[in-house]
């Protein structure tokens, strides 16, 4: 049977682990608030640019943009948004599972895959399983700057322009509430045309200053960038929420373990006392 000293040591070590996890839980809770605020602050821009894009799609434009063009797909690019740090439950793993299954599905249709990765977790995952990685953006922090994502998006869009890829997917977690995060794989390119069933085919077009091509190129690039940025800040909020839950569970588990060990400790102590007593009694009767 274990001796009391050992059990006490174990209890002490679990208690210090519990302190760490509960501190991490509180850190995640306070960060969650901030990341959620950032997520909400970014929303007006993405809503407005979406409005503008849907107006543009309705306009009878003189220049059909390549992002709207459906090509026979030969290769797809996945932009995978993950967290930089672990300890956030199944958040990243559930997302990767969806990405891999989608990529395997495309593979069966003989469509190749390549990956643009955001976050350390994604790059280390694809490092171990293989896959053609075309761009990586890591360590963006809690308040990512839109500028940090320009490079990655440009690599993907340039590949599309050069016909190296025909489709692009954005893979990220969407924030449902604190308890639930939903992994999503959304098609970015070709842009799905808006439903315009009820409206009569429009005959109007914008006045473009300076040129339609130049403007639409810029605007649609900005649109894709804003979608990626929005996905990153939303994923951040998801990460903190998932981390908070994971750490809360860990703290609770540590509490349960400590309870069990304390019970064991009392048993061991009692057994030792009983044994000592019986030895004394035995000794006394022998004398």
């Amino acid at each position, binding site marked *: 049977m274990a001796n009391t000293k050992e059990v006490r040591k174990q209890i002490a070590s679990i208690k210090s682990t519990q302190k760490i996890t509960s501190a991490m839980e509180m850190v995640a809770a306070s960060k969650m608030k901030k990341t959620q605020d*950032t997520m909400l*602050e*970014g929303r*007006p*821009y993405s809503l*407005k*640019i979406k*409005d*503008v894009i849907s*107006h543009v799609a309705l*306009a009878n434009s003189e220049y059909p943009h390549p992002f709207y063009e459906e090509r026979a797909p030969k290769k797809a690019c996945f932009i995978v948004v993950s967290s930089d740090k672990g300890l956030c*439950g*199944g958040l990243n*793993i559930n997302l*990767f*599972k969806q990405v*891999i299954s989608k*990529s*395997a599905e495309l*593979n069966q249709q003989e469509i190749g*895959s390549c990956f*643009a*990765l955001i976050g350390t977790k994604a*790059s280390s995952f*694809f*490092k*171990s*399983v*293989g*896959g*053609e*990685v*075309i*761009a*990586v*953006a*890591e360590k963006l922090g809690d308040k990512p700057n*839109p*500028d940090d994502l*320009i*490079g*990655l998006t*440009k*690599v993907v869009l*340039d590949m599309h322009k050069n016909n190296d890829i025909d489709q692009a997917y954005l893979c990220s977690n969407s924030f449902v509430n604190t308890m639930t995060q939903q992994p999503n794989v959304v098609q970015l390119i070709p842009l799905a045309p808006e439903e315009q069933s009820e409206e009569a085919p429009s005959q*109007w*077009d*914008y*006045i*473009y*200053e*300076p040129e339609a091509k*130049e*403007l639409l190129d*810029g*605007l649609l690039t*900005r649109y894709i960038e*804003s979608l990626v*940025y929005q996905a990153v800040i939303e994923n951040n909020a998801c990460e903190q929420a998932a981390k908070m839950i994971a750490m809360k*569970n860990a703290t609770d588990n540590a509490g349960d373990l400590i309870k069990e060990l304390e019970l064991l400790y009392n048993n061991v102590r009692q057994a030792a006392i009983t044994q000592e007593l019986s030895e004394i009694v035995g000794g006394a009767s022998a004398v």
Partner: protein
Amino acid sequence: MNTIKINIVSSSEEIYSGEATMVFATGTLGELGIAPGHTPLLTGLAAGPVRVQNGSDEETFFCSGGFLEVQPDLVTVLSDTAERAESLDESEAIKAKEVAEQELANKDTTIDYAKASAQLAEAVARLKTIQKLRKKQ
């Protein structure tokens, strides 16, 4: 009085939203004045002020570039937060590619689907076990 709705947003925040009788902005081709009922217009914005007039009130915002969309009853200003230039974008793109190359030096580029799904299945199983353990208690 006739007014037009105006929204000014940047990628990190909503800057202004309201009604205006007249909006002035600096387009890439020159100064623009937009009154209610303006014909649809899409233009780039140069760095400069965006002035929003509502009756005798006037508010001014600085915009470092971006896009301006005009619908007859709506003006949307999509402001960039940072200065953008083609060369800057290019260097960012090169950086992103370099990181990818470093991360995956001498790696084969085909995905090992079996390995990937095995790895994920293991991680999921681990999580499920933890959840089951918790439910038992």
